[in-house]
């Protein structure tokens, strides 16, 4: 592909190599088989997936086992590949908007937000404040929903059946709000380029406030079931540990990065939408183990509630759509815009050649990048821990494969 942006292609190449040198992957991440195996000829190669109850869809992990000890993993992805990025090149900017919902389908609102903001940045328009507030409310609600789904399936992977149903019960309330707002529960397509299509329905604020009072004790309830549970602690503490350096080197973002102690959240670091107006904390962990990631996500849910509460109490009146031309034709250029999706940094890189369709659209999906950390996390652990770690990375295969 030759970029339509003509100038400086050589410089770019230099930049890339310099970049690579600077961020060279630490040597211990080049993983060779470290030691003589316990029983040489008895190395089990196990195909975990693509049809497996705990790989969250169609992830296939090839496990090299020594007894039950994991000596290496290899992720095989692409079973759910739909060519979303290629589709974008044949759709107008408006037409492509619903497609992004199908990537991380449990956090569709975030995906839509990232895409709309990226195109807005390309068009140089800004969504009106009211639209920004609605976006924040819906995105944070979606973050809670995503974390709830993560918690339920993660607990189920580790063997606790019950939390799944508790979280699904409460996630249902969020989906109801989405449904009333835009008619869809999962693939919401809630936002439009330049704002929101729909004004909030009558009673939206009441619904959200009711939800806030409803869900706060429920989060405590999940914690009651798990946080002090001995077996849960034993299964999650010191399991899948990853250091902050490794996280940074591998490009891991989101709760996984924060649980390793790096206070990096795009909502604070480069505020988008209306996030700069709200007061919230970035929870971080210390050990970077599965338990810390669990705690970080639980705390993030509470922080999301705080944000939603502030937003819904101070939501301004006004228009919900900026002035956007009927036919969206961004100027020639390229843009990278990223937001803090529930799973990490979700970025859109759009190259425009001035036509109605993107010349190239590239998604930086947090799940895919975070999945790289799997091998680092599970080496030397047992099969059961692989399940726990896959759960704790919180991947959605729709987003990994796109």
């Amino acid at each position: 592909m030759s970029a339509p942006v003509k100038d400086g292609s050589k410089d770019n190449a230099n930049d890339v190599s310099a970049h690579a040198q600077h961020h060279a992957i630490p040597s211990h991440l080049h993983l060779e088989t470290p030691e003589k195996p316990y029983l040489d000829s008895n190395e089990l190669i196990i195909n975990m997936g693509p049809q497996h109850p705990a790989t969250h869809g169609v992830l296939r992990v090839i496990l090299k086992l020594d007894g039950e000890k994991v000596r290496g993993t290899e992720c095989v992805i692409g079973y759910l590949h739909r060519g979303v990025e290629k589709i974008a090149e044949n759709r107008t900017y408006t037409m492509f908007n619903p497609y992004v919902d199908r990537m991380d389908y449990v956090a569709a609102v975030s995906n839509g937000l990232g895409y709309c903001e990226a195109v807005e940045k390309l068009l140089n328009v800004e969504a009106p404040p009211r639209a920004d507030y609605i976006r924040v409310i819906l995105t944070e609600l979606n973050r809670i929903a995503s974390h709830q789904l993560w918690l339920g399936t993660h607990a189920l992977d580790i063997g606790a059946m019950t939390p799944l149903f508790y979280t699904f019960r409460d996630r249902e309330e969020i989906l109801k709000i989405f449904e009333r707002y835009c008619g869809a529960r999962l693939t919401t397509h809630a936002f439009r380029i330049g704002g929101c299509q729909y004004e909030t329905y009558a009673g939206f604020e009441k619904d959200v406030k009711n939800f806030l009072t409803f869900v706060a004790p429920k989060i405590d309830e999940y914690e009651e079931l798990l946080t002090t549970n001995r077996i849960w602690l034993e299964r999650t503490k010191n399991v899948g540990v990853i250091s902050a350096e490794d996280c940074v080197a591998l490009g891991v973002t989101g709760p996984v990065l924060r649980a390793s102690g790096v206070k990096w959240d795009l909502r604070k670091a480069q505020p988008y939408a209306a996030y700069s107006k709200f007061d919230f904390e970035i929870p971080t962990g210390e050990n970077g183990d599965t338990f810390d990631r669990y705690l970080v996500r639980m705390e993030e849910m509470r922080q999301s509630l705080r944000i939603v509460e502030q937003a819904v109490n101070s939501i301004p009146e006004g228009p919900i759509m900026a002035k956007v031309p009927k036919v969206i034709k961004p100027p020639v250029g390229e843009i990278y815009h990223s937001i803090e999706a529930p799973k990490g940094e979700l970025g859109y890189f759009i190259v425009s050649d001035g036509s109605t369709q993107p010349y190239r659209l590239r998604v930086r999906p947090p799940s895919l990048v975070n999945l790289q950390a799997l091998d680092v996390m599970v080496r030397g652990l047992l099969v059961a821990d692989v399940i726990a770690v896959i759960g704790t990375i919180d991947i959605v295969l729709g987003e990994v494969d796109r």
Partner: protein
Amino acid sequence: MIPGLNLALMAVFTTTTDPGMEPVATPFFFYLLSGLAILGGFLVITRRNPVHCALALILTLIAMAHLYLMLYAPFVAAVQIIVYAGGIMVLFLFVIMLVSIERASKDRRFNRFWPVGLAAACALMALFVSAFVKGRALFPDRMIAIPEGSNTQQVASMLYGEAGRMGQYTFAFEIASLLLLVAILGAVIMTKKKI
């Protein structure tokens, strides 16, 4: 299937109240069980696949346990089932699964010197036969009734002694437990990669 069923039947049939009374169908069960035991033994030494051998050995062990029941040794029978069938054989199966069996099942079954071994075993068998034929009188046709009801207590008093007095075999028993301890330690040390 048959050993399990038998265990049930034997449990019913051998626990008669009168200790002197012979169980209902002694010859039938004796021939059945000893047949099964010998069949199992035969399969152990002929089957190619080690897991099949282990299963055959389990058959033999369970049949032997029934024979012990018929000999009014219920405690030994129970120990046989618990230790052998439930413990040692599971260990065997565990190890068979741990070491690769794909290759073993394709290998030759017998070693190069098998005719020698067979001849030696045949000689041994001849020795047994002659001993049984010639020494028929040494084995009187009698079965002295052992009170079955208190079998366990009697074995216990031989092993542990009673009322402050050392039993006949207390010392040997302690030695045996020491042997087990040493065996456990040895097994652990041998199989552990790094100590």
